[in-house]
């Protein structure tokens, strides 16, 4: 029921595409019915996939039976499937990063073959989840540099097949917001983004992708902005070299009064951080707030201020009815 309730609440609170993860076939018809209710006469799910679903393989070289069956059902109705292997180098795949890449790739291809055989043409997203295990404790390590290197190779493989790819990148092993969460998220997020990842997984995720933190999500939104800024790169044509302007301003003086400065800054030539501080120590100290506290405040403000278009009353009622049916029939 939890998957269904998440789905209902999700669509009541966002106008964006929603990604779920289904565990067994019995749940699929209710999700599909809710999607139909949400779409109403705005087209069929196949033409307008308002949700997609993630299905993990289980390394080494296994599919989870009930979960895969459920996703075969969803794929048959045109729901895009994100097939996500997560081999751990040295534990559930060879210890070498290349071995983990190979394992991730063949597990994905096996899943892809299943969906295509069952529903030719079914949309499938390549999942790049290879990572490592902490050889001291056995814990899953989401934020190590190995995950970034594995991710780069997998992004290249996905694009070699002409498929969109979701790469783990922003997920961190840090328990809370701080140095570790920032460095791990930026390191791997930037690496896979520069490799060309179409989606980067892990926004707001702490504790090896086990905990969703709203303050961390706000900070990750900043990471996404900076990653996007870096990925866009730097234009260096005549227009951007601005040799004429250099000649015009000449020796000494400054560029602040120049129209180009105002215009190009306005157009996003520089990155404008929203969450980090450039102020002097004394000013920062006087404000007296940790990064996490500032982010938490911002998260609360967003929750308070962000307008959500409500579902049409008849759609909301229909979803409620589907949930009631599910509660009766699903154990």
């Amino acid at each position: 029921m939890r998957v269904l309730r998440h789905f209902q609440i999700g669509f009541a609170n966002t106008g964006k595409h929603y990604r779920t993860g289904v565990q067994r076939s019995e749940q699929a018809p209710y999700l599909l019915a809710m999607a139909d209710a949400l779409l109403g006469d705005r087209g069929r799910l196949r033409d307008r996939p308002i949700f997609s679903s993630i299905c993990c393989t289980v390394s080494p070289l296994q599919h989870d039976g009930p979960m895969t069956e459920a996703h075969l059902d969803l794929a048959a109705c045109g729901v895009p499937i994100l097939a996500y292997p997560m081999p751990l180098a040295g534990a559930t795949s060879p210890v070498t990063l290349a071995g983990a890449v190979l394992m991730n790739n063949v597990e994905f291809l096996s899943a892809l073959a299943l969906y295509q055989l069952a529903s030719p043409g079914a949309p499938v997203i390549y999942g790049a989840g290879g990572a490592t295990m902490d050889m001291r404790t056995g814990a899953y390590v989401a934020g190590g540099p190995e995950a970034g290197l594995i991710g780069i190779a997998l992004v290249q493989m996905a694009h070699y097949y002409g498929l969109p790819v979701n790469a783990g990148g922003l997920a961190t092993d840090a328990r809370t917001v701080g140095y570790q969460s920032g460095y791990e998220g930026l390191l791997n997020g930037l690496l896979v983004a520069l490799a060309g990842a179409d989606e980067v997984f892990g926004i707001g995720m702490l504790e090896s992708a086990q905990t969703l933190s709203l303050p961390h999500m706000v900070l990750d939104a900043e990471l996404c902005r900076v990653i996007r800024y870096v990925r866009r790169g730097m234009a260096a044509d005549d227009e951007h070299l601005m040799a004429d302007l250099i000649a015009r301003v000449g020796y000494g003086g400054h560029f602040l009064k120049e129209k180009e400065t105002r215009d190009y800054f306005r157009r996003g030539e520089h990155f404008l951080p929203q969450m980090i501080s450039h102020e002097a120590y004394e000013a920062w100290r006087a404000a007296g707030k940790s990064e996490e506290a500032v982010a938490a405040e911002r998260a609360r403000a967003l929750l308070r201020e962000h307008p959500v278009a409500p579902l049409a009353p008849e759609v909301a009622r229909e979803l409620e009815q589907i949930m009631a049916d599910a509660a009766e029939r699903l154990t």
Partner: protein
Amino acid sequence: MNHSELLEEMAQAVIDGDAEQAVALAEQALREGLPPLRAINEGFVKGIREVGDCFGRGEFFLPELVMGAEAMKAALEILEPELARRQEARQRLGLAVSGTVQGDIHDIGKTLVGVMLSANGFEVIDLGVNVPAATFVEQVRQRRPDLLLLSALITTTMLRQGEVIRALREAGLRDQVKVMVGGAPTTPAWARDIGADGYAENAGEAVVVARQLLGIIE
């Protein structure tokens, strides 16, 4: 090679994680009339203790730990028939039955816990993955283990840990076994909520908790 050299080599084979060498030395012990219990306690067990200590100090890593345990296991398989023939038994700290709960096929966590417990003198029966509650109950009934270890890696399958505990209660077996739970989504609070006796964050801690639950003092 005299017996004390042979015993030293046995320990070394486990430290090196060399299962072939461990088997060869176990066979040599049987040929040369070294009592199997002595081979175990003064040879192989010494090796696995050293492996465990090195792991605890951060000098060894999981591959060394698992290979050491595998070498130990391979040697025991050679020596155990002779032990049985002599009607002798290895001293063990306790019997543990372990498995990953139904609906979950993640193997590695509970396997590591099993390796650590075995290395520290427990006997571990591993039921594998996707184990129904009824099987756990049946195993507790038949084998009377001291510990039942329930593993789960997914937030949806961890619920099954509670089901197993309820099934034990319904079968009237709850008081006969200490139940430990673990796995990435589980927490000490979760263990308390479902009425488990113990929780461990990782395989090393599982040994400490198991000893505490059984009242074993070094």
